[in-house]
């Protein structure tokens, strides 16, 4: 009963925060509304006994949104305090498409005769996840890690204007004062 109430509160928070992302006037509020939506979903995962993944979702997404807020402010190019912003194109078709999607998905969710539950969750879900990752599903992790590494390298290559060779000279000798780049 209690978990029922908690779930509905979290669901309302998640959806309301999700709507707020595209409705509020401030970029900081938009970003942290998204963070709130993620936190609500992360806590909802705790209700489904997915402790590790739930807490992990909260951890990653709050971190990501904290950085996201900086990017929003950096790139939006306007006084970000509380300025009305509407930067949308094709609002009506987008609305139609998304409502259509919701109707289809919701119809699927309600109308499909879902099978009954097979099997029971392991006694210690965290351990079982760890064992799955390190045993039967190890290939997944072996794929994920190079992908993540490639992401780091690729993102740095794309985003960095100048490498350390530009900053410190060909021999990496020029120690700039304050560790800051010389222009």
């Amino acid at each position, binding site marked *: 009963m209690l978990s029922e109430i908690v779930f509905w509160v979290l669901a309302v928070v998640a959806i309301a925060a999700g709507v707020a992302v595209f409705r509020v006037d401030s970029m900081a509020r938009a970003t942290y509304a998204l963070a709130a939506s993620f936190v609500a979903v992360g806590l909802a995962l705790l209700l489904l006994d997915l402790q590790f993944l739930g*807490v992990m979702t909260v951890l990653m997404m709050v971190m990501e949104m904290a950085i996201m*807020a900086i990017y929003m402010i950096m790139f939006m190019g306007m006084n970000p305090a509380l300025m009305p912003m509407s930067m949308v194109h094709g609002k009506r078709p987008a609305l139609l498409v998304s409502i259509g999607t919701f109707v289809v998905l919701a119809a699927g969710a309600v109308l499909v005769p879902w099978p009954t539950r097979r099997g029971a969750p392991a006694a210690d879900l965290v351990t079982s996840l760890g064992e799955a990752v390190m045993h039967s599903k190890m290939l997944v992790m072996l794929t994920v890690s190079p992908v993540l590494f490639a992401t780091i390298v690729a993102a740095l290559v794309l985003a960095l204007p100048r490498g350390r060779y530009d900053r410190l000279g060909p021999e990496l000798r020029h120690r700039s004062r304050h560790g800051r780049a010389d222009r």
Partner: protein
Amino acid sequence: MTVTQVSAGWVPLAAALLLTVATAAAALDGVLAARSAGRPLSGGLLTPAAETARLFRQRRRTTIAADLPLQRIGGAGLLTAALLMVVVVPFGRWTVADMAVGVVWFNALDVLLWAALWLAGWGPNSVHPLVAGHRFLAQALSYELPLMFALTTPAVAAGSLRLGDLVAAQAGLWFMVWMPVAFVVFCAGVVAFSAWGPFSAALGSGAAGGVLAESAGVDRWLVTAGRYALLTAGSAFGVTAFLGGGHGPLLPAWLWVLVKTSLLLAVLVALRRRLPVVRPERLAVPAWLVVLPLVLLQLLVVSVVVVARG
């Protein structure tokens, strides 16, 4: 020693305990301040009470076009995170929430501070807090990864993310003894996420008080108290993860936790007057090129030991 989960009725007591120890930390800081200023030490001892009385009577300050909701959320975030952190820390034989992922829980809450301090800086719509909020994020980018791997190390050694198991695994030898690097990095991480001592650039005089530049009254109290509470919660977690938790001779387990936490906390508080403030941008290079590899090496050593022991 098994850890039992107490009923929710004990939560206020746990919160009161955290605040009491945090108050003691504030008193210690007051004494140290009084000593370095040559004032009578008894006056320093009363600093927490005097500050609380002063701030509670003071009016809140609002700036023009401030984002008040975000500012308030950010300001209250520090204390909230500290309270939620100690929820998983076993106090001797008892714990409020015996979570299977206690270590990750602690980690998630310290990440919440990224948001809290930045929001507290963003809210007032004022230059210095804004700059300071960004400074904290820049610093967070440096300390977070070493802290994460420092947290991973005891979990690997104990083979569990549950704090009760961490304590049980230290029955013979404290983790601090054979993972000193992880312990030191963890303590630095605690100091950093509390924006304390050498890592207090976000709240320092270098930016006119930083995040606190525009806050007064209850708002200011919340952030100040929140920092002490964070240091306390961090110390309590450090004691559990590295210093053997409730293990010790003669005294009962809960008293050992209290004694060890107080000692670690005292050291962290005293650091404030010993070390200069590091600018966040100068932290990045040592953090990523020196500390992170060191912690990874520590993790590797611990993993090898764990595998070798079977």
